[in-house]
């Protein structure tokens, strides 16, 4: 019996396990998943909690329930991987061996990596993150009776999970304060290490225009060095300072520490992989899926979904001793909430930046790319159902893993 061990039962680990269990011969392969706990969070929902759109209980379900019944799920902390011996040591002293290892342990916000940020006197008092359950629920309580002031939204460094979420948070904050009749009491500032509102030029222009229209000031190329919590200001490496009354930060995102302990992680604990096959550059028997790898694509559930479509067929070729013929193209597809019941949609990959157009049916839609519409917003809300009921069980979403250029308006240069 061969063993496929999957570390991480989040979006990528769960989809991969549920898809592979349908394809692998059960008399030959045993799949096992390891995770620390049984709480599977619908992370896109974290964005809505500070504004009271979703309650905390609407974003968490059982990991066990969403994993195929035949797959054992072990709850344990991972100590280290020994890639030469093909074993994984758990913190409780157990050792698991594997023939193939899938690393799907994601990334985590790390406020401890920026001096001052996690100062216990101010963390979750005047300084918040919203990418964790604890952070987003604490922020919801804070915003419920916040009297107004200078609200700074800050990205420490790329790459981060869901790179559009900080923009969405800002758009939704503008709408939230407007609807409460207190927008004039709030000064909104968006602080980014990038040279514009977003990484890709055409989308950055669209998002920059929206920030301006909503009266948000943009501070670009700001590399945060430390947070001065006593004087409530951000200080950059080149000694620029930005004051705040309330700071909503996206801390440095890092992969799991055990990966670097095991010699598998880079400077951000991400596993270097071939960007088309997701196979470790160091060890053929290791693949890294979802946020845990270092591919130059967005860290997002949609990327995990599209890459696993390609990965599953490759994996079958790999275990049959054949050459892997599938090549992931970096396809990502994200909704961007812009407030007041509207959203934008972007669709892009390694080589093609987000462009205007219609999606998924060329010329028809019903959704529009790089344009604020109610249909896009409905799509985003409907996606939560699809996440639990279609995506995680590994059922077909009806979207191609590869980016399609049909329906997109290509700029004439």
């Amino acid at each position, binding site marked *: 019996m061969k063993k496929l061990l999957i570390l991480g039962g989040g979006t990528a680990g769960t989809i991969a396990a549920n898809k592979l269990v349908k394809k692998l011969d059960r008399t030959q392969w045993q799949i096992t998943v390891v995770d620390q706990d049984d709480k599977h969070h619908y992370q896109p929902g974290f964005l809505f909690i500070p504004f009271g759109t979703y309650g905390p209980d609407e974003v968490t379900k059982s990991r066990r329930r969403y994993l195929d019944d035949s797959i054992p799920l072990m709850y344990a902390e991972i100590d280290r991987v020994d890639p030469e011996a093909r074993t994984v040591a758990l913190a409780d002293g157990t050792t698991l061996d594997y023939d193939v290892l899938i690393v799907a342990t994601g990334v985590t916000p790390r406020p401890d990596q920026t001096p001052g940020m996690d100062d216990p006197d101010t963390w979750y008092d005047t300084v918040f993150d919203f990418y964790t359950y604890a952070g987003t629920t604490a922020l919801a309580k804070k915003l419920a009776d916040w009297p107004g002031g200078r609200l700074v939204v800050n990205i420490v*460094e*790329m*790459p981060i999970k869901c*790179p559009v979420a900080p923009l969405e948070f800002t758009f939704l904050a503008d709408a939230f304060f407007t609807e409460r009749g207190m927008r004039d009491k709030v000064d909104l500032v968006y602080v980014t*290490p*990038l040279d514009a509102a977003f*990484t890709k030029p055409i989308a950055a222009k669209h998002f920059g225009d929206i920030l301006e229209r909503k009266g948000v000031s943009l501070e670009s*190329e700001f*590399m945060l*060095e430390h947070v001065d919590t006593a004087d409530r200001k951000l200080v950059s*490496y*080149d000694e620029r300072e930005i004051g705040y009354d309330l700071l909503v930060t996206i801390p440095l995102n890092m992969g799991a520490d055990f990966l670097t302990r095991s010699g598998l992680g*880079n*400077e*951000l604990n991400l596993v*270097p992989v071939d960007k088309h096959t997701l196979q470790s550059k160091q060890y053929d028997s290791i693949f890294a899926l979802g946020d845990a790898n270092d591919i*130059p*694509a*967005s860290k997002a559930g949609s990327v995990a979904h599209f890459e696993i479509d390609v990965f599953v067929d490759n994996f079958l070729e790999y275990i049959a001793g054949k050459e892997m013929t599938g090549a992931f193209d970096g396809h990502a597809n994200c909704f961007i909430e812009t407030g007041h019941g509207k959203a934008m949609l972007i669709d892009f990959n390694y080589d093609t930046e987000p462009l205007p157009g219609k999606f998924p049916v060329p010329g028809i839609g019903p959704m529009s790319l790089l344009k604020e519409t109610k249909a896009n917003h409905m799509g985003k809300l409907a996606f939560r159902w699809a996440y639990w009921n279609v995506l995680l069980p590994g059922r077909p979403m009806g979207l191609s893993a590869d980016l399609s250029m049909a329906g997109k308006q290509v700029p004439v240069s």
Partner: protein
Amino acid sequence: MPVTTIEGREVQVDDEGFMTVYDEWDEQLGGALAKLIDVDMTDEHWKAIQFLRSDFKTEGVTPTLRRVSTAGGLDMKRLFELFPKKPAKKMAYIAGLPKPHGCV
């Protein structure tokens, strides 16, 4: 791809002037590129540039600022002093490497 002339030599560059062919670069060109963006090169500057060159050779991508700092052992704050305002871009430009796009 545009071709430009630096120090009397023709080199291939992208639209923003970043060199695109790894082996067309040498230290003399690096020095000339530094002058174009008003960076006075010292041994400390060259140490950073040499790290970028060797890291690109093994990794195939321009290292991010964090990588130059952690893997290259150079203090981040010092890099901002050596290559003011935009250290990641300036170092890549002088080292004859593609503009870093560690950001997606």
